[in-house]
Protein backbone atom coordinates (compact mmCIF):
# COMPACT_ATOMS: atom_id res chain seq x y z
CA UNK A 1 0.00 0.00 0.00
CA UNK A 2 1.34 3.44 -0.97
CA UNK A 3 2.13 5.70 1.95
CA UNK A 4 0.37 9.04 2.14
CA UNK A 5 2.39 11.85 0.49
CA UNK A 6 2.71 13.73 3.79
CA UNK A 7 4.35 10.70 5.43
CA UNK A 8 6.73 10.33 2.49
CA UNK A 9 7.69 14.01 2.82
CA UNK A 10 8.23 13.55 6.56
CA UNK A 11 10.53 10.59 5.98
CA UNK A 12 12.35 12.41 3.15
CA UNK A 13 13.07 15.46 5.30
CA UNK A 14 14.70 13.25 7.93
CA UNK A 15 17.20 11.74 5.46
CA UNK A 16 17.71 14.12 2.48
CA UNK A 17 19.96 17.15 2.44
CA UNK A 18 18.16 20.27 1.10
CA UNK A 19 19.13 21.33 -2.42
CA UNK A 20 19.09 25.07 -3.24
CA UNK A 21 18.13 25.36 -6.91
CA UNK A 22 20.36 27.29 -9.29
CA UNK A 23 17.23 28.55 -11.05
CA UNK A 24 14.28 30.88 -10.56
CA UNK A 25 11.16 31.11 -12.72
CA UNK A 26 10.13 34.59 -13.86
CA UNK A 27 6.57 34.95 -15.08
CA UNK A 28 3.86 37.47 -15.83
CA UNK A 29 0.19 36.57 -15.43
CA UNK A 30 -1.78 37.63 -18.54
CA UNK A 31 -4.91 37.90 -16.35
CA UNK A 32 -3.16 40.63 -14.32
CA UNK A 33 -1.49 42.84 -16.95
CA UNK A 34 -0.70 45.64 -14.48
CA UNK A 35 1.00 43.34 -11.97
CA UNK A 36 4.81 43.17 -11.88
CA UNK A 37 6.69 40.05 -12.94
CA UNK A 38 6.60 37.30 -10.30
CA UNK A 39 9.57 35.17 -9.24
CA UNK A 40 9.02 31.55 -8.22
CA UNK A 41 11.59 30.17 -5.77
CA UNK A 42 11.80 26.34 -5.57
CA UNK A 43 11.82 24.97 -2.04
CA UNK A 44 15.15 23.25 -1.14
CA UNK A 45 13.50 20.29 0.62
CA UNK A 46 11.04 19.83 -2.25
CA UNK A 47 13.93 19.93 -4.74
CA UNK A 48 15.79 17.27 -2.73
CA UNK A 49 12.67 15.05 -2.87
CA UNK A 50 12.30 15.63 -6.63
CA UNK A 51 15.92 14.69 -7.29
CA UNK A 52 15.76 11.63 -5.02
CA UNK A 53 12.65 10.11 -6.59
CA UNK A 54 10.05 7.84 -4.99
CA UNK A 55 8.38 10.68 -3.07
CA UNK A 56 6.41 13.10 -5.28
CA UNK A 57 3.22 12.11 -7.12
CA UNK A 58 2.77 12.41 -10.93
CA UNK A 59 2.11 16.01 -12.01
CA UNK A 60 -1.14 15.06 -13.76
CA UNK A 61 -2.68 14.18 -10.36
CA UNK A 62 -2.18 17.81 -9.26
CA UNK A 63 -3.70 19.07 -12.51
CA UNK A 64 -6.80 16.90 -12.03
CA UNK A 65 -7.04 17.93 -8.37
CA UNK A 66 -7.32 21.59 -9.43
CA UNK A 67 -10.86 20.77 -10.53
CA UNK A 68 -11.80 19.03 -7.25
CA UNK A 69 -13.96 21.19 -4.92
CA UNK A 70 -12.82 21.93 -1.36
CA UNK A 71 -13.48 19.11 1.07
CA UNK A 72 -13.69 16.43 -1.64
CA UNK A 73 -11.05 13.64 -1.78
CA UNK A 74 -7.96 14.51 -3.77
CA UNK A 75 -5.84 12.16 -5.83
CA UNK A 76 -2.27 13.42 -5.39
CA UNK A 77 -1.67 12.38 -1.72
CA UNK A 78 -2.43 8.73 -2.53
CA UNK A 79 -0.86 8.38 -6.00
CA UNK A 80 2.15 6.13 -6.64
CA UNK A 81 5.31 8.25 -6.46
CA UNK A 82 7.34 8.94 -9.57
CA UNK A 83 11.03 8.27 -10.24
CA UNK A 84 13.86 10.75 -9.76
CA UNK A 85 13.94 13.87 -11.94
CA UNK A 86 16.90 16.02 -12.90
CA UNK A 87 16.81 19.70 -11.89
CA UNK A 88 15.46 20.90 -15.25
CA UNK A 89 12.62 18.35 -15.15
CA UNK A 90 11.88 19.30 -11.55
CA UNK A 91 11.56 22.98 -12.50
CA UNK A 92 9.18 22.10 -15.35
CA UNK A 93 7.10 20.01 -12.90
CA UNK A 94 7.03 22.92 -10.45
CA UNK A 95 5.91 25.35 -13.16
CA UNK A 96 2.90 23.15 -13.92
CA UNK A 97 2.17 22.64 -10.21
CA UNK A 98 2.59 26.15 -8.78
CA UNK A 99 2.07 28.60 -11.68
CA UNK A 100 -1.44 29.24 -13.07
CA UNK A 101 -2.18 27.36 -16.36
CA UNK A 102 -3.02 30.63 -18.10
CA UNK A 103 0.73 31.40 -17.94
CA UNK A 104 2.30 28.11 -19.11
CA UNK A 105 -0.54 26.45 -21.06
CA UNK A 106 -3.18 28.86 -22.33
CA UNK A 107 -1.32 32.02 -23.33
CA UNK A 108 -1.19 32.53 -27.11
CA UNK A 109 0.25 36.07 -27.32
CA UNK A 110 3.64 37.14 -28.66
CA UNK A 111 5.01 38.50 -25.42
CA UNK A 112 7.44 36.23 -23.53
CA UNK A 113 5.73 35.78 -20.15
CA UNK A 114 7.66 32.82 -18.71
CA UNK A 115 11.40 32.40 -18.38
CA UNK A 116 13.66 30.08 -16.36
CA UNK A 117 16.75 32.03 -15.33
CA UNK A 118 19.85 31.46 -13.18
CA UNK A 119 19.36 32.92 -9.73
CA UNK A 120 22.17 35.46 -10.34
CA UNK A 121 19.99 37.21 -12.94
CA UNK A 122 17.34 38.13 -10.37
CA UNK A 123 18.11 41.66 -9.09
CA UNK A 124 18.81 41.83 -5.38
CA UNK A 125 18.03 45.57 -5.40
CA UNK A 126 14.27 45.77 -4.88
CA UNK A 127 13.95 49.58 -5.22
CA UNK A 128 11.72 49.25 -8.28
CA UNK A 129 10.33 45.80 -7.47
CA UNK A 130 6.73 46.72 -8.27
CA UNK A 131 7.74 47.76 -11.81
CA UNK A 132 9.58 44.58 -12.80
CA UNK A 133 8.70 43.15 -16.21
CA UNK A 134 10.41 40.47 -18.28
CA UNK A 135 12.89 42.10 -20.65
CA UNK A 136 11.52 41.42 -24.14
CA UNK A 137 14.59 42.80 -25.95
CA UNK A 138 16.92 40.43 -24.14
CA UNK A 139 14.57 37.57 -25.00
CA UNK A 140 14.87 38.36 -28.70
CA UNK A 141 18.68 38.48 -28.61
Amino acid sequence: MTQHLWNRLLEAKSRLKPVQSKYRVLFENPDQPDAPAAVLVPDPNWMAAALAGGILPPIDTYLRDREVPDGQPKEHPYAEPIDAMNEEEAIEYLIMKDIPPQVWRDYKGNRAILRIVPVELIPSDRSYRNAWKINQLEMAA
Partner: protein
Amino acid sequence: MSNLVVSNISDGTTSVGTGYVVNGSAKAWVDFGQVGTQSINDSFNVSSITDVAVGRTVPTITNAMAGSNYHVSFSMWDNVYYLVVSVGSSKTTTGFLFATANTSSAAEDADQVTLAYTGDLA
Protein backbone atom coordinates in the same frame (compact mmCIF):
# COMPACT_ATOMS: atom_id res chain seq x y z
CA MET B 1 7.85 2.73 8.21
CA SER B 2 5.88 1.01 10.97
CA ASN B 3 2.73 2.38 12.60
CA LEU B 4 1.90 2.63 16.29
CA VAL B 5 -1.89 2.55 16.61
CA VAL B 6 -3.11 3.93 19.94
CA SER B 7 -6.16 5.94 20.87
CA ASN B 8 -4.61 7.79 23.83
CA ILE B 9 -1.17 9.00 24.92
CA SER B 10 -0.42 9.18 28.63
CA ASP B 11 2.47 10.34 30.83
CA GLY B 12 1.18 8.15 33.66
CA THR B 13 -1.01 10.85 35.17
CA THR B 14 -2.66 12.72 32.33
CA SER B 15 -3.81 11.26 29.05
CA VAL B 16 -4.85 12.84 25.78
CA GLY B 17 -6.48 11.36 22.68
CA THR B 18 -4.02 10.86 19.81
CA GLY B 19 -6.53 12.62 17.56
CA TYR B 20 -5.79 15.88 19.41
CA VAL B 21 -2.06 15.40 18.85
CA VAL B 22 -2.36 14.44 15.18
CA ASN B 23 -4.94 17.09 14.31
CA GLY B 24 -3.19 19.77 16.32
CA SER B 25 0.26 19.39 14.81
CA ALA B 26 1.48 21.63 12.01
CA LYS B 27 0.93 20.11 8.55
CA ALA B 28 3.33 22.49 6.83
CA TRP B 29 5.69 25.28 7.77
CA VAL B 30 8.15 27.57 6.02
CA ASP B 31 10.76 30.13 7.01
CA PHE B 32 11.74 32.61 4.28
CA GLY B 33 13.21 36.05 3.68
CA GLN B 34 11.63 38.75 1.47
CA VAL B 35 14.58 41.16 1.37
CA GLY B 36 16.97 41.03 -1.60
CA THR B 37 16.54 37.89 -3.70
CA GLN B 38 13.79 36.01 -1.85
CA SER B 39 14.86 32.62 -0.52
CA ILE B 40 13.59 29.77 1.65
CA ASN B 41 15.65 29.05 4.77
CA ASP B 42 13.86 25.86 5.79
CA SER B 43 10.45 24.26 5.46
CA PHE B 44 8.29 21.17 5.55
CA ASN B 45 5.62 20.22 2.98
CA VAL B 46 6.27 23.34 0.88
CA SER B 47 7.09 23.26 -2.85
CA SER B 48 7.84 26.93 -3.56
CA ILE B 49 7.33 30.56 -2.66
CA THR B 50 6.49 33.15 -5.29
CA ASP B 51 7.65 36.72 -4.88
CA VAL B 52 4.85 38.73 -6.51
CA ALA B 53 5.65 42.30 -5.35
CA VAL B 54 7.10 44.28 -2.46
CA GLY B 55 5.83 42.64 0.75
CA ARG B 56 3.77 40.09 -1.21
CA THR B 57 4.64 36.39 -1.25
CA VAL B 58 2.62 33.31 -2.23
CA PRO B 59 3.82 30.12 -0.48
CA THR B 60 2.57 26.88 -2.06
CA ILE B 61 2.42 23.54 -0.27
CA THR B 62 3.12 20.05 -1.65
CA ASN B 63 0.40 18.00 0.06
CA ALA B 64 -2.74 20.12 -0.16
CA MET B 65 -5.03 20.82 2.77
CA ALA B 66 -8.51 19.23 2.68
CA GLY B 67 -10.28 22.58 2.41
CA SER B 68 -9.39 26.27 2.41
CA ASN B 69 -10.51 26.88 6.02
CA TYR B 70 -7.19 25.87 7.61
CA HIS B 71 -5.33 27.92 10.17
CA VAL B 72 -2.09 29.81 9.49
CA SER B 73 0.05 31.26 12.27
CA PHE B 74 3.02 33.48 11.55
CA SER B 75 5.92 35.41 12.96
CA MET B 76 8.07 38.09 11.34
CA TRP B 77 11.30 39.81 12.10
CA ASP B 78 12.78 43.07 10.89
CA ASN B 79 14.12 46.38 12.16
CA VAL B 80 10.71 48.00 12.01
CA TYR B 81 7.38 46.82 13.33
CA TYR B 82 5.18 45.03 10.83
CA LEU B 83 1.53 44.30 10.63
CA VAL B 84 0.01 41.72 8.38
CA VAL B 85 -2.28 43.15 5.76
CA SER B 86 -3.73 39.78 4.85
CA VAL B 87 -3.34 36.07 5.16
CA GLY B 88 -6.07 34.78 2.99
CA SER B 89 -7.10 36.82 -0.01
CA SER B 90 -7.45 34.15 -2.69
CA LYS B 91 -6.79 31.40 -0.12
CA THR B 92 -6.88 27.90 -1.64
CA THR B 93 -6.03 24.40 -0.41
CA THR B 94 -2.41 24.88 -1.55
CA GLY B 95 -1.63 28.55 -0.98
CA PHE B 96 -2.59 32.14 -0.31
CA LEU B 97 -1.21 35.63 -0.67
CA PHE B 98 0.83 36.62 2.37
CA ALA B 99 1.26 40.38 2.66
CA THR B 100 3.45 42.42 4.97
CA ALA B 101 3.31 46.15 5.59
CA ASN B 102 4.97 48.69 7.84
CA THR B 103 3.21 50.68 10.53
CA SER B 104 2.18 53.26 7.92
CA SER B 105 0.35 50.43 6.08
CA ALA B 106 2.73 50.66 3.12
CA ALA B 107 3.85 47.33 1.65
CA GLU B 108 7.33 46.44 2.86
CA ASP B 109 9.59 43.38 2.75
CA ALA B 110 10.42 41.56 5.99
CA ASP B 111 13.84 40.07 6.73
CA GLN B 112 12.36 36.83 7.98
CA VAL B 113 8.86 35.34 7.91
CA THR B 114 7.79 32.03 9.44
CA LEU B 115 4.40 30.46 8.67
CA ALA B 116 2.83 27.29 10.13
CA TYR B 117 -0.33 25.59 8.87
CA THR B 118 -2.72 23.54 11.00
CA GLY B 119 -5.87 21.79 9.85
CA ASP B 120 -6.84 18.66 7.92
CA LEU B 121 -4.75 17.32 5.06
CA ALA B 122 -6.25 16.22 1.75
